[in-house]
């Protein structure tokens, strides 16, 4: 078929499709998913991971015939971790591109800032990384913020439980970065400790790019902390470990997933035994979906060694998020924001990360999060690699 003929037939198909759907009077949304994530800036790796996971899912869905007869597209915008740009991108995705949903990024500050425009416009938002509790538990009804990722409130409980396994007396210090993510986690950690009848012996903060953490580490040591819980990124996590090394302080270290990127490379042997919460690992026995994913990652992105895949959780969460959105669009039967928002509560699927049965629950305000604490996974750094804690040399 000549290209002109092809175009004509596509136009015809589109006209028919519009005709079929024209019972919905108001503006139609397009078969695209818009992602606002940090593609540049210090967390650029996260944007890459999200893009990878989302694109793999979209390619698979399109190969299987698309959604409602249409091919899905990914529209990528960069927010560089800046909330104003995230807000701007949200508007652009919704109003200019008319995409059916917004896919979230890495930074919690951006996700929290997106709550307002998302509800003002009424477009479904699907978080795949940023874990701030209030981004999703925002008190809105109907709530357009959904998430296939960790939630700090639950991560806090998960990590406090792990920390209390190490320190029976609950001598736990908390180190957190001075950002929306770190500050947002402090009340969650305190609440999780209080629920177990304990109190933090020290709470210490630091800024991005800080070169030396010895004052904070000295205070934690002097407070008698046996466990240090860390809410930071790799670079600062490494500084905390080095400061501990310098003053000869050796507590158990347990962190949220900010230190799951390249801490092993940065801190070398100092990272050995540092535990990290994850939602996914490619190093556990893989499901059929996982095996297929690994094959695609090797074929399309040259990632042949599963242990060399950075940010596995980000890739896997984005992959599942796109499938859940596609399911919701099918259930809604239309590319329509409000209908898709309602349909998201009806999605049931076996995902890569977890079984989503159902993905979300309308009757429970805590359940606009698809991943539950029982889906979280404890990993541990060992000789530069992040391996599942279970069965590791540190699992005693």
């Amino acid at each position, binding site marked *: 078929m000549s290209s002109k003929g092809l175009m004509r037939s596509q136009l015809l198909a589109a006209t028919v499709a519009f005709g079929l759907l024209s019972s919905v009077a108001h503006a139609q949304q397009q078969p695209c998913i818009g992602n606002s994530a*940090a593609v*540049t*800036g*210090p*967390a*650029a*790796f*996260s944007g*890459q991971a999200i893009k990878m996971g989302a694109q793999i899912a979209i390619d698979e869905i399109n190969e299987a015939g698309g959604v409602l007869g249409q091919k899905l597209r990914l529209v990528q915008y960069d927010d560089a971790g800046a909330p104003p740009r995230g807000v701007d991108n949200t508007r652009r995705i919704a109003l200019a591109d008319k995409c059916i949903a917004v896919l979230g990024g890495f930074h919690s500050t951006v996700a929290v800032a997106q709550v307002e425009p998302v509800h003002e416009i009424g477009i479904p938002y699907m978080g795949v990384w940023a874990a701030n509790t209030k981004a999703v538990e925002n008190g809105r009804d109907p709530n357009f913020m959904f998430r296939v990722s960790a939630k700090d409130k639950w991560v806090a409980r998960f990590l406090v439980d792990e920390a209390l396994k190490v320190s029976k007396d609950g001598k736990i210090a908390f180190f957190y970065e*001075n950002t929306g993510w770190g500050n947002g986690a402090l009340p969650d950690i305190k609440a999780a400790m209080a629920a177990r009848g304990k109190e933090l012996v020290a709470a*210490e*903060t*630091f*800024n*991005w*790019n*800080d*070169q*030396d953490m*010895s*004052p*904070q580490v*000295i*205070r934690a040591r002097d407070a008698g902390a046996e466990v240090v819980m860390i809410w930071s990124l*790799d*670079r600062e996590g*490494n*500084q905390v470990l*080095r400061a501990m*090394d*310098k*003053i*000869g302080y050796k507590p158990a270290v347990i962190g949220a997933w900010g230190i799951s*990127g*390249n801490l092993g*490379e*940065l801190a*070398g042997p100092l990272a050995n035994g540092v535990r990290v919460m994850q939602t996914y690992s490619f190093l556990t026995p893989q499901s059929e979906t996982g095996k297929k994913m690994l094959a695609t990652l090797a074929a399309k992105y040259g990632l042949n060694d599963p242990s060399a895949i*950075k940010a596995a959780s980000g890739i896997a969460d984005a992959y599942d998020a796109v499938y859940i959105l596609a399911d919701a669009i099918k259930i809604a039967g239309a590319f329509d924001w409000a209908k898709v928002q309602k349909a998201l509560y009806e999605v049931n699927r076996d995902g890569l990360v977890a079984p989503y049965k159902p993905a979300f629950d309308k009757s429970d305000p805590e359940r606009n999060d698809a991943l539950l604490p029982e889906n979280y996974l404890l990993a541990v750094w060992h000789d530069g690699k992040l391996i599942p804690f279970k069965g590791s040399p540190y699992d005693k």
Partner: protein
Amino acid sequence: MSTVAQYIFSGLAIGGIYALVALGFHIMWSAARAVNFAHGDTLMIGGLMAAYLVASGWSLVLACGLAILAGGAFGFVLERLAVRPFAGQANSIGWMLTTIAVGIMVESLATIETQGYALPLPSPGVAGSVQVFGAGLYPQELVIPVIAVIAMAGLRLLQRHTLIGRAMQAVAHNKNAAALMGIDVNLVIAFSFALASLTGAAAGVLIAPVVQASATMGVLPGLKGFAVAIMGGITSAPGVVLTGLAYGVIEKFVEGYISTAAREIVGFSLMIVVLLVFPQGLFGKREVAKV
């Protein structure tokens, strides 16, 4: 006691970096009455390049040497492209904007290259810690302030006893008179930018094993190095180095006894107070501008 020693030594280490960066600002200002606001990024170029070269199998010494030279070349080229064309203007807006712009561009490029990850620079200086007066330190951290002081002394020798050093002072004093004496003013200014960038890149190579090399590693040291240069009196080399070391130590005590979050508030408030009381900086000489 050991805590106080810890704060002093950790503070001297980071203060040594501020001092080296401030020394670079001093060198540029002395010769050109202009500075490179991308100076912090010179630090990053040095650190990142060394990390990349070591990762690709170069020996540490060669990698660091080449990285420092690359930093110097960056300063030289930047002066030619982004400072000199604007230096003749009556105001300073031109070179301020262009150097800031180049800095942002270089940082963005580095982010694309590193994808935002920090890279390790393995060095024997951070292989194990040593105890000094009960404080735990990496040998690398002890070396940094010493190098800052050596760099200052070396600069003094250069200015007093070499032709290029004297030419730099002549250009600083009066460009027109220096030109009439047969000094190639442009060459001297370009040299001073290259020299400043060499110290900046050296600071990057020195600090990278401790803080890791990353695209944003130069941002804060660049800003604080400039603040230190202004506070210390940008015309005085010993002034900026002493102020740099002191500023690092003060920061650690604020972190230790008040809080980490208060560090920048106290530090920059101090800077404003210093400038109110000593408009020329603590050790700076009043500059007479003849009209």
